[in-house]
């Protein structure tokens, strides 16, 4: 069944979907950018609601459209169906005492595991594409990118 949509003057726009099983899902876009999501199960008089900000709305939308295949706490895996189902994982880690003071080039990260250090965040400042002579400090947050096997290798090699 398609979405039924109507304008609610003074509130925003409402999209309502009645599923085959008779449940009703309504999404209301409000003028201030927030979104309210309601689900009303069939044969149940109550409505369950969530109030989402724009960021939460996008995250929920991504999960529903299947753009993100696997969402862990610190990482996401993205599938590109146009490129023969290429799956790339992006993961973040916090640098511990083991790697502190060492440079990316000296650690040979890419040749040993295949992952690339995409960015480092230190005290709120971001360094994108750090050079091989970049030295880690304990507490740095790093973003690594690679296939999931490579990410697993990186975790075993450097993070444990």
């Amino acid at each position, binding site marked *: 069944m398609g979405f039924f949509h109507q304008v609610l003057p003074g509130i925003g726009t*409402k999209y309502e979907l009645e599923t085959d099983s008779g449940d009703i899902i309504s999404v209301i876009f409000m003028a201030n950018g927030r979104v309210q999501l309601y689900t009303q199960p069939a044969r149940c008089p109550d*409505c369950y609601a969530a109030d989402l900000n724009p960021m939460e709305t996008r995250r929920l939308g991504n999960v529903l459209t299947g753009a993100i295949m696997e969402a862990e706490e610190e990482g996401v895996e993205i599938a590109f169906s146009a490129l023969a189902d290429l799956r790339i994982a992006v993961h973040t880690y916090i640098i511990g005492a083991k790697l502190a003071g060492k440079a990316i080039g000296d650690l040979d990260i890419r040749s040993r595991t295949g992952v690339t250090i995409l960015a480092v965040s230190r005290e709120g400042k971001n360094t994108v594409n750090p050079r091989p002579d970049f030295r880690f400090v304990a507490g740095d947050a790093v973003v690594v990118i690679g296939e999931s096997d490579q990410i697993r290798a990186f975790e075993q090699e450097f993070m444990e």
Partner: protein
Amino acid sequence: MEGIAIALAVCVGVAFICRRYAIPPIPFYIITGLIIGSAGLGLVGSSDISEWIAHMGLLFLLFTMGLHLHPGEVAKRRGSFLKAGLIDLCINFIAGFGVAYLIGLPLYDAVVLAGAFYISSSAIALSSLIDNRKLGFRESDTVIWLMVFEDIMLVLLLIILASQDVSPLRTVGIIICMAAILFACARRFTGRIRLFFAREDELPILVVFLSVVLAVAIADLTGVPDSLLVIILGSAISLAASDRAEAVARPFREVFLVVFFVFFGISVSFSGAPSLVLLGSVIALAILTKFVSGVLIGKTIHRRALSGVDIWADTTSRGEFSILLALLYGSPAVVPVVAALVVVTSCVGSFTGKYSMRIRRWCGNVTSGN
């Protein structure tokens, strides 16, 4: 100026507390005004400046109301919109008129009071639906469109009250001409108006303020009420850029409306008011008639009387439009009645809006005999 500063400062505190507990601030602005004004401590009196700001608040309220009256969207509504609106109108307007007759008001005042008695507060109803997460219910759609119907009735009522002066045909004629010109311009230049309101600089803000001030000037020249002109202007702009225009007008409306509410409270004097018993019964009747109309609408539109309890819970508050009618057209005998009506019904309404699910469940248990 210090009067406005004191009044606004207290209102900011009131708004802060109300937001914290998610209750509508409108009745508390009026109570604040009653306490610091002539009915209470007499700390603050109204001045020319406060009256001007309050009047701008009223005009911006009506301008944004006009923005919600998109002619195309309203025309798309089907029979249920008319049915619900007419039930609400007939029951509450006639009851209000009867009440006014009982108090012994002359015909003109009786129409004003009947209007104030009939029209619910859109501001309180809509924020209750959002804050209490009720937008998913079908009943909420009915409530929202009921507010639109009441807005249209308010426009008609304003036209009727405005044409009470010397030359009604001339007034109505000017209103129709103005509307025709504004809507034709909005249709012709839809694209340009939309582009203009999409600008990020100060120009849309200046133009919105200018057009409201211009409406006052035209009203002075022609004798047509500025309240009607700004509604028509808002409705015309809604054809092109409803959302952006509302975003631009909102800061003006929020600030000026607070002054409008608090100085309404300040100006109220209870010296000519009817007895407490009579006031109390008027208010009780106002809550009751909305219950009756709500249940009838629930039965007609949703085929369940219990749906009507939901509709009643969010439409029982009277608010900004009732005050507006009393201020613009009410005599000193009407104003205190409307003040009491708004304060009590909106307090009751914020409670019923918050606990409507429990009230409905309770009503369901009572009617099914458990």
